[in-house]
């Protein structure tokens, strides 16, 4: 119970922190809108390629943008932890009886909450510009769960690397190094059968692709729930490993204080 309460306090603290930075909120919301509208317009005609089966490109792209945004915003999670460490806030918590797990869990949970809110906005926008999601409410809900899992995973990884690097510049470099290749080595922008075969094999091991494939299937007319469950399972397993990694990194940070 204490762990749940402490995690909740920390999550609320991080959400409030985010809310206090209106420019940051604006940028994180504008970015997916640009992705959706710009790429939607740029690649409008790719649906004429046979692999797309004539669907609307915005409807095809929207789940990809939801997933990509989940990764992009969560991958920065470790920055705030580094700032907390540098400002002595983390050390203050460590001399209090706060549950140690809550200090990491609160950040991961915050990323999940933010991802769901961003996803809602992106889906609403896609509907406004004329996309339709035949998978219905259940399909969209599944997409949200999957993107929240991915966001939580990247949040945990980012915190873990942040704890190891302890330097904002280093973490920025690492995030930028990882995020774009993961996006383009996936079916985010193009149907899987249109990307080169070797890339498809790489994409099979790419968690971003797991989320895109599962999320896109969930909102489509004939959702493949077996596939969705399998990919969601991979994501849960990866989340578990990422949390374990972040926890270990936090323990080694505690020893070094």
């Amino acid at each position, binding site marked *: 119970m204490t762990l749940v*309460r402490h995690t909740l306090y920390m999550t609320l603290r991080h959400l*409030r922190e985010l809310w206090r930075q209106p420019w940051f909120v604006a940028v994180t919301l504008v970015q997916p809108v640009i992705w959706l509208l710009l790429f939607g317009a740029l690649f409008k005609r790719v649906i004429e390629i046979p692999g797309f089966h004539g669907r609307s490109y915005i409807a095809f792209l929207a789940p990809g943008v939801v997933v990509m945004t989940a990764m992009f915003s969560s991958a920065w999670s470790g920055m705030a932890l580094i700032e907390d460490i540098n400002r002595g806030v983390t050390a203050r*918590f460590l*001399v209090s009886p706060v549950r140690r797990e809550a200090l990491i869990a609160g950040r991961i949970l915050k990323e999940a909450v933010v991802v769901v809110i961003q996803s809602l906005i992106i889906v609403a926008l896609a509907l406004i510009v004329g996309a339709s999601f035949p998978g219905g409410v259940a399909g969209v809900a599944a997409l949200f769960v999957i993107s929240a899992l991915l966001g939580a995973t990247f949040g945990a990884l980012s915190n873990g690397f942040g704890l190891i690097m302890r330097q904002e510049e280093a973490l920025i470099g690492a995030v930028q190094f990882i995020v774009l290749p993961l996006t383009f080595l996936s079916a985010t922008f193009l149907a899987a059968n249109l990307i080169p075969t070797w890339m498809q094999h790489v994409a099979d091991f790419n968690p971003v692709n797991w989320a895109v494939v599962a999320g896109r299937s969930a909102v489509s007319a004939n959702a493949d729930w077996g596939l969705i469950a399998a990919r969601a399972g991979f994501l849960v397993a990866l989340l578990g490993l990422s949390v374990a990694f972040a926890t270990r990194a936090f323990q080694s940070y*505690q020893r070094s204080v």
Partner: protein
Amino acid sequence: MEHAIEADGLVKSYPKGVTALDGLSFAVAPGSVFALLGPNGAGKSTAVKILTTLAKPDSGAARVADIDVIANPDRVRRTIGVVAQGSSVDIQATGRENLRLQGQIYGMRRHALEQRAQDLLERFGLADAADRVARGYSGGMQRRLDIAMALVHDPAVLFLDEPTTGLDPEVRADMWAEIARLATDQGKSVLLTTHYLEEADQLAEWVAIVDRGKVVAQGTPDGLKRELRGDAIHVDLEREYNGTVTRALSDLEAIRDVAVDGRTLRARADDGGRAVPLVLQALESHGVDVSSVRVARPSLDDVYLKYTGRTFDAADHEWDGRRRLTAAP
């Protein structure tokens, strides 16, 4: 509770062979302000880290409020309040939110917590700024909020690690008044680390001088100074009197180490206040005219010099030098 805090033979070395603590031992009486005084790098902060459960010693034992720090860190955490070196305020949150979160961690009930937060905000002069984000607070305000946060759960033992370093002199004086009140009005046991000699002198009932990870001397500030055997008496004479002055004072038992240098007379006395009239009387009866008299109590700086063979400033600079060497690539 026999001792509020007890450190017994603490040893801690860091990688690269830096010995931070080399058998540090001391005990803090309940309800008193105790100062660990030493230059930068003496090991004070490492001692605080161990006593507040942040770090583990290589060897030695530590107890806070009779609880073993190494065996029961969680119980210790519920008993202590800590003001770290440098502010630990969450600058994205308001003063009130900072206090609220701190209290929630200790499981305080909502109404009691809101009341407590309001009381502390008022007491530390933060009531007007309570609902402003702490990013805009001055250094002194953030420091006061640090102390308020450390007090939210009404801890019995309070650790203040260099609480006034980097503050303006006026703000420092305010902070001293506040710290003094903590022990006298509220019966808290306070461990203060400082590298300001005046701070230890002003606030602490008991001072332990730390040098290179060990306590080299301890006692009340006055007691430590008394070990230097007395006050310095300094007399300015109207003109040079050559041998007359020494002759005039040769029979006085109240003073010793008499030295005359031109128009200046120096001597030491166990009790300067009592010796001065006798000195003046003796000089007058030999026709020596005096223009001014000063009695100086020995300072903690003199004490530090006696026990370490270095002045305090030199030790501080030595550490800066060492740090520059280790920081070089």
